[in-house]
């Protein structure tokens, strides 16, 4: 389900889930490690912030650990765990909306942690190179970000996106349409500002 080089064959996943439920911690770690990279990417795409993506990943590991015994179809582990990370991202987003800064000096720039991250680790996660795109993504609703991240960042077919989000394929397509339209508008708005020679790129 995930676009993940580390993804394990389904039979191995089923066996690891079974062992993990029976208390084998190393099986749990092996299982979660096989998904961590893709889950982190999904978290990064939806939250737009490396620290929040780490939070979401850590929370997902906890929820997965505590709920694994309730997973009825171990062969769908990757689908299930992706759904968990997305929900964790939504929770983090809701929590942040409730935080009101005490003064304007306490408010950071729109993407300051991301900038620091990109600057301190050049090339890592291709962070710095896609600033406009990331900013535009951040301005979408979290539901729209989720479909965009799964469809284009994770490169999943619409049917798989629908299964992960537990929504009809038609809804995925509709959300994608609106999300891309929003992205297009936001990127267009940002181009003249960030690219003075943007006219050369106009279509």
């Amino acid at each position: 389900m995930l676009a993940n080089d580390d993804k394990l064959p389904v039979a191995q996943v089923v066996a690891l889930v079974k062992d993990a439920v029976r208390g084998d911690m190393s099986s749990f770690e092996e299982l979660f490690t096989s998904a961590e990279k893709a889950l982190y990417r999904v978290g990064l795409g939806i939250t737009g912030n490396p620290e929040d993506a780490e939070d979401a990943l850590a929370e997902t590991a906890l929820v997965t650990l505590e709920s694994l015994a309730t997973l009825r179809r171990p062969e769908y582990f990757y689908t299930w765990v992706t759904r968990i990370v997305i929900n964790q991202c939504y929770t983090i987003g809701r929590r942040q909306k409730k935080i009101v800064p005490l003064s304007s000096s306490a408010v950071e720039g729109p993407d300051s942690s991301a900038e620091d991250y990109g600057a301190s680790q050049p090339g890592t996660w291709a962070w710095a190179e896609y600033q406009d795109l990331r900013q535009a993504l951040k301005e979408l609703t979290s539901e729209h970000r989720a479909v965009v991240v799964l469809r284009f960042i994770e490169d999943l077919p619409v049917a798989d996106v629908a299964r992960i989000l537990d929504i009809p394929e038609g809804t995925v397509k509709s959300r994608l349409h609106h999300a891309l339209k929003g992205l297009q508008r936001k990127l267009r708005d940002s181009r003249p500002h960030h690219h003075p020679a943007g006219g050369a790129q106009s279509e």
Partner: protein
Amino acid sequence: MSKRESFDREEKQLKEYGLALRSAQMPETAKRRWRDAIKNAKTPWFRPRLKGYYAAAAVPAAVILLCLVSVLASPTMALYAGSVPILGPFFKALGADRGLQMSQELGVSQQLELSETVNGIEFELVSVVADVSRTVFAFRITGPSDRVEPGEMIDVSVTDQWGRSIGGGSMWYKHEYVDDQVILTGTITKDGMITMTRHLNLVVNSISGVKGPWEFKIPVSYNRAAALSESYDLGVVSDEINGIQLEVVKLECNATETVVTYRFHGLRGWEDGLMFLPRLYTGDGTPTTPLRNLRASRSDLSDDHLVETVAYEPIPDGTTTLRVEHEAIGMVYLMPEIAERRGNMARAMPDTLKFEFAVTEDAGSRILEPNSPREIAVWGTTVEITEAQVNGNEVIFKVRGTDGLLVDINGFMLVDNTGRHYQLPHDSAGNFESETKFGHLGTEGLHFEYTLRYTVGGDAQGLTLSFPHVTKYVEGPWVVEFELDR
């Protein structure tokens, strides 16, 4: 000029971004943080179920104890009355289940102020919760961080007033560092009814390899819990689906948890290989969180049924309508020699679950000729070799399990006529390389398909491919709705 909206540019940009992200390294901090998080977490693993006659014996014994408990006096109720109500927040901070959080309010937990320091390590017993289906000790350990290592074993034993050992159960804890000290806070749970004793002895033999003992004698009474417990003999059954029926035998509303006993019918000859965890909903569709599997019983594999007991968080007061759902059951099936090695824990497959091929020459090429049927029935479904070919030293098999039959990829065995065993090639991480496809559990039915590529010796004249381990999934859902006469 078309007015249709085009997002080609945005899609291309997103895909490039995705490609860049997928090819980049993940930060080490992200990897480390989730590992740290789970080290501190509670691990509500379901302990391995009792097997065979031990488990079968446990159920009647438990029922007898339940009958006896109601005639006991209450020697320690005064202890409950004087407690300051701090245990709810304590259990909440631990992340314990709702039943434990409510235990003091319900009068089934006792706040303790018992502590002992041995070899510089303090073991403090914070409370004991005495419910009829579980006894829970909450503890706090404080010791120097160079001696107490989170994750290392804490060896604990519990005995009743007659010195009889109380086995089973589980332990979990969280840890935190304060200056040069580490503090472990958690619970020790003993399952089942130990309700006749007037006190329990808890002995901590060692902590992180540091020998104790830290010893405690704790007065307990289960009378309050027994008075709060309501038991319902139900015997309500689901429709029969795929030959299997789910019966809700009994429901016990205990002070801190709801315990449901299920019986699955129609399992003659099946191994109880995978988990059974029916979901329990209240009438308005609210799910009830499962806490743990208490026991499973089956006298032997010729039994038609399996009894499973699951503890859930308490259902709300006044709940009268409940629904149980269980979607699919997976069961393990082993080759005879494997089953023997594992002490007959699983049902053995027929000897015939082997596919044999002769390697012969045909017009200068080596070919595989089947010496046995390519399709073998297992438990009413089939494993089939859909393709078998040899190219030089490479042998390719395409194998399919239909109707919910999962063949364990790690279990394939290929042996040639000289007795040489071959393994599938594997990558640096030890994963076997194969192409695996699987269909969905649903209207299409679950099916698995594998392409296996082996390199065999050039002098091999015969090959036998066998499957030591398969799992059969049977789909439900089995649904039971029932009313409680409260």
